[in-house]
């Protein structure tokens, strides 16, 4: 026991060193790039953060659900419905704060619906998630009217002083509100899961609900609340798309981001910071593919062949990356032990 304990500790030590080393190498790489092309580097990193925001919010939604033992593949649908309702509130009231609340509420309601199906009605949780995805596509497609206009979208807020730091300032401290919120939420949810009573209990019901039950924890009630919180986070991701990123609604505007969020959640081993790493990677790939298409005719000679590729192939880049990342990591990631299992007492 002592021996295995120290091996485990040594292993975490090694992972820490490895992560530290990787982050250091990355920082050096960014600095070198910044020294050679400051504007392009800043633009790429800013775009990376923007692109990763809906992904990390969706992944946080997944983490809250799955850590409590409920599979949620309906994040895509939750995002889409919330994006739509947030947009409608913006159209009707012109008040962006109300619009965000509308998106949160929509996500929470769809989350509650998922909880009802998965926990109380004991529907297979994959099917329940699929129902939500199909419902979202049909619902938003049916009620969407062309030509609705809004008075505006969420705009970047520069934080005084901090935003004037070179490189870091424009990338981290000149963002619109939901992006800021997503960065704060990564830390908040990390602390919630691993340092608080609620988090300990949430992880327990996702690993061994019977054990939690025997110490007096209301398993299903806690699962409901976690799935609803997850729904609201997905709702915020939807709100980001229609209120901050694009500023209007389009059919199927989530375009698979909910599923990428799931992949990122698994990549990050169901932890907020791990998922953030995955989300940034995806955001970066997405940025690069648009950059490459944008710079098609100005590529250096050794990359000229890339410009010859049909743009559809370049557009695949982020998704290919997702597949590669998942194929490389899923096997080693361990999901919560009670994931997808209905808890029944007798």
């Amino acid at each position: 026991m002592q021996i295995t304990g120290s091996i485990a500790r040594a292993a975490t030590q090694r992972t820490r060193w490895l992560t530290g080393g990787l982050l250091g190498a990355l920082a050096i790489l960014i600095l070198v790039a910044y020294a050679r092309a400051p504007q392009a580097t800043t633009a790429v990193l800013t775009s990376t953060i923007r692109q990763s925001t809906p992904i990390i919010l969706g992944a946080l939604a997944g983490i809250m659900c799955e850590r409590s033992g409920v599979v949620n593949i309906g994040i895509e649908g939750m995002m889409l419905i919330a994006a739509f309702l947030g947009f409608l509130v913006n159209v009707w009231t012109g008040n962006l704060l109300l619009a965000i609340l509308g998106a949160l509420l929509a996500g929470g309601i769809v989350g509650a619906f998922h909880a009802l199906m998965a926990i109380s009605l004991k529907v297979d949780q994959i099917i329940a998630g699929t129902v939500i995805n199909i419902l979202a596509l049909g619902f938003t497609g049916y009620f969407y009217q062309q030509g609705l206009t809004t008075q505006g979208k969420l705009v970047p807020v520069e934080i005084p002083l901090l935003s004037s730091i070179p490189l870091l300032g424009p990338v981290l401290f000149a963002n619109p509100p939901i992006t800021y919120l997503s960065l704060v939420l990564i830390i908040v949810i990390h602390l919630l899961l691993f340092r608080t009573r609620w988090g300990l209990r949430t992880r327990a019901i996702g690993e061994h609900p019977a054990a939690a039950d025997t110490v007096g924890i209301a398993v299903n009630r806690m699962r409901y609340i976690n799935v609803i919180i997850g729904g609201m986070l997905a709702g915020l991701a939807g709100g980001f798309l229609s209120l901050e990123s694009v500023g209007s609604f389009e059919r199927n505007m989530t375009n698979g981001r909910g599923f990428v969020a799931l992949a990122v959640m698994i990549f990050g081993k169901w932890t907020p910071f791990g998922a953030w790493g995955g989300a940034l990677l995806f955001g970066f790939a997405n940025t690069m593919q648009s950059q490459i298409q944008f710079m098609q005719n100005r590529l250096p000679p050794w990359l000229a062949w890339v410009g010859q590729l049909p743009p559809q192939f370049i557009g695949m880049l982020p998704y290919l990356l997702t597949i590669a990342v998942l194929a490389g990591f899923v096997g080693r990631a361990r999901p919560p032990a009670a994931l997808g299992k209905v808890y029944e007492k007798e």
Partner: protein
Amino acid sequence: MRGDAPVVLEARGITKRFPGVLANEQVSLTLQHGEVLALLGENGAGKTTLMNILYGLYQQDAGEVLVRGKPVRMRGPSAAIRHGIGMVHQHFMLVPVFTVAENIILGAETSRGPLLDMAAARRHIHELSQRHNLAVDPDALVKDLSVGQQQRVEIIKALYRNATILILDEPTAVLTPQETDELFVIIRSLTAQGVSVIFITHKLREVLALADRIVVLRRGRVVGETRPREASERSLAEMMVGRSVILQVEKQTAHPGATVLALEQLSLNDDRGQQVVNALTLDVRAGEVLGLAGVQGNGQTELVEAITGLRPVRAGRVLIDGQDYTGAAPRRISESGCAHVPEDRQEDGLVLGYSVADNLVLNTYYVAPFAHGIVRDGQAVLHHAEQLVAQYDVRTPNVTTSVAALSGGNQQKVIIARELSREVRLLIAAQPTRGIDVGSIEFIHQQIIAARDRGTAVLLVSAELDEIMALADRIAVIYHGRIVATLPATSASREQLGLLMAGAQPEHL
């Protein structure tokens, strides 16, 4: 702790029904301050149901529970915990990937501000483990602990919640004899400090060794109460079963013949890819029972699966009658005359949705007389089943009944009948009597000895040392995937086997 001590917990006329079963009928019992009350009964006698009611996991249909003289309604485990009742379940209620400290505080956490106060928790755990002599490392992960250590964590978990009434459900089922002795010392020191203990078991020796009072349950009813001084293993067994039972298996000396099963330097991985059997060599001869003793999880399960073709072999060879069957298909191995009574009868031994008759031909349905080419002969299957049901005393309404509807003992008899009703050279019996009634145990033991006397080589894998000692001619002890010793059954003692099972080196004994 004798007669005049105050009653801390009382059950009055508890009745609990499950669909089709009366699990508890008018059960009454009392627990006095500082005593060990043994609750004795066969599997399915209703012991665990009763305890789950006392702990608030089930609600009784009738009757009441009194804690220190006051009637209470246990609406859930939190109510029971509030009243000072703690329970250590048969299957531990610990989260494997959590640390010891996290498991202990779960549901009774202390916080400083919004965050958990792990330092305070660690201090409290340390203090408890000092006071009760229960050594644990609060920062170890539970999955890295031995079963005995996990049990200690469970006990501290109850004490952390200030439990003064402790229910232990079959606590010795997974322990070595030495760990059992340690547990008894712990229980004694707890009662000396005023904790009252209900100890659930079906092992007679333990009851006599530990209990102050004994209550016997049979078919959901209290059938008697006694004290160890006034009881013997025989009298307790009779109370438990309701008739006189033969505790000793009658058998003649074995006459071992040629080697039938030979394992050569066998190495195996478990499902997670960890090596669990390590260059293991073992042979079993015709006409002998080789008992494989060991604490659960030392590679027995994987070993049985590899012999019967259900698990790939990493290295080494499996020989049956001198022929190489390493990595052969299960059917080929079965057709070589190898019978398999699997560890988990419902998962691997039977197709629960099928009838008794169909389950009886699972290994022969594709040959005559049960099939002609691709056409099944239903009549032959039914006829065969009727014969076997009579011969093996399977209690079933008829042979077309779904096997899921049978009791555990009768399900096991169906498997034994199927496996032994043909010409068998080798019998692999894994936990053949786990969780079944004493009557069926007797019958199955007789069948195993009868097979041996017909010249079958028997490999008996069992977690019950008593079963190994009763049946085996030779005993091999497995520890961490290796055979640490092989002894003739006549010269092996419980203590010696217990030490070997815990990893002691044979030369030090």
